[in-house]
Each structure stands twice: as structure tokens, then as C-alpha cells.
């Protein structure tokens, strides 16, 4: 039931783009994306509801393909502050009961 995230880790130079994928074996009601920096709590980035919508937050956006039970997070022109571990949380029933993937560690170098 745990979603699968890929890749597990990414190393970029500042200004490069990244895509993080989240795939579920069960039908999805919503996908929630979080970023966690070392020693801190996960911080909410955005939520995607079933319906295949795409959302954006500054240079970070995400898509949701309900049919494929997948979501992707897009980071454009990455900044040093984007470093951290990104988690997708999947909700299968609309009950806010989130199951989290193992995370994708993103490192941005100057």
C-alpha cells in the first residue's frame, strides 16, 4: 500500500530541473507533497485531488494522473533552498489517512 517514489536520490546544480515520481498500486483520492529538511518536520507543499489537475507553487508544480495512479513533482530552476527530502503521501479514501513513500533526497549544489 505504500507508494513508490523514484528516484531515491538526486544531485543537481543550482538552476537545474528535477522530476520526482510517486506511484501507487491502489486507486487514489488525493496525493499530498511534503518537503522535509534534516532535523525538521515535513512541510506541506501542495495537494492534488483526483481529476488529473496540475498545481503550481512558485517554481514547484505537480501533476496527478488518476488513471495511472501516479503523481509527479516538478522543480524548475532549482534553488539551494530546495534541498531536502521530498515525500508523497497518498490518500485512498478521502479520509486524510496519508500513507507516505520512502522519500526522495534532493541535493542542490552551488
Amino acid at each position, binding site marked *: 500500500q*505504500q507508494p513508490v517514489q523514484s528516484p531515491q536520490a538526486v544531485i543537481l546544480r543550482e538552476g537545474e530541473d528535477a522530476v520526482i515520481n510517486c506511484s501507487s498500486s491502489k486507486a487514489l483520492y*488525493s496525493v*499530498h507533497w*511534503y518537503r522535509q529538511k534534516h532535523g*525538521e*518536520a*515535513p*512541510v*506541506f507543499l501542495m*495537494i492534488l*485531488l483526483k481529476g488529473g489537475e496540475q498545481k503550481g507553487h512558485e517554481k514547484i508544480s505537480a501533476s496527478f494522473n488518476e488513471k495511472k495512479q501516479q503523481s509527479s513533482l516538478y522543480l524548475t530552476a532549482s534553488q539551494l533552498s530546495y534541498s531536502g527530502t521530498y*515525500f508523497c*503521501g497518498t490518500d485512498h479514501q*478521502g*479520509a*486524510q*489517512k*496519508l*500513507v*507516505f*513513500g*520512502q*522519500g526522495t533526497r534532493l541535493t542542490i549544489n552551488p
Partner: protein
Amino acid sequence: DARVTQTPRHKVTEMGQEVTMRCQPILGHNTVFWYRQTMMQGLELLAYFRNRAPLDDSGMPKDRFSAEMPDATLATLKIQPSEPRDSAVYFCASGLEFSGSGNTIYFGEGSWLTVV
């Protein structure tokens, strides 16, 4: 600035001791979650409450863990007796749920537990 508040932030205890972690959800939120985070297992859901009623605690070791919500502003997670394998970060999260809302949940800063 609404936030989920957790205490203690850090706790070192000896094996066999009782540990109680507390959480104050964001005012007005009706759903409270307890997650545990370790390097090996990632973020695991231990238990959650809606309107103070326990909905699911299947992720929690029943013999030593217990979770309660004595009132709308306080959730507790207790471990008795504690074991070294319980060493982890315990996060509380809260959210406002109503049907079809698509609302998300917000995490507290976590309680870092070390059992020696």
C-alpha cells in the same frame, strides 16, 4: 501563527521506563495523527483520531503503546515499557476533515526519542 505543538522535543530514557508524548493540534482541527519516523521504515502511521474518537491504531504495537485524546486540545502517545527499538522521531499531525474537502494535514516539530 497556527501550528501543531509537541512536547517533549527531545527525550532520552532508559529501557523499561514509561514515556509520554503530548500534542496540541491546530485550533479547530478535528483530526489528529501520530506518525513514527525511522531511517529504515520511513514515516509510519501509528494511530489517528477524528473528533477525539480513535479511528485506526492498527500501526501501533498494542502491547506497549497507547494513544488517547482526553480533550480536543490534547493528544497523548504513551510507551510502557520503552525499548531501544522505539528510538525514533514521533510526529503529531492535525487536519480539518469534512467530506470531499481535500484538506491536508500539518506536522508538529516532532518528539525525538532515544531509549538506551
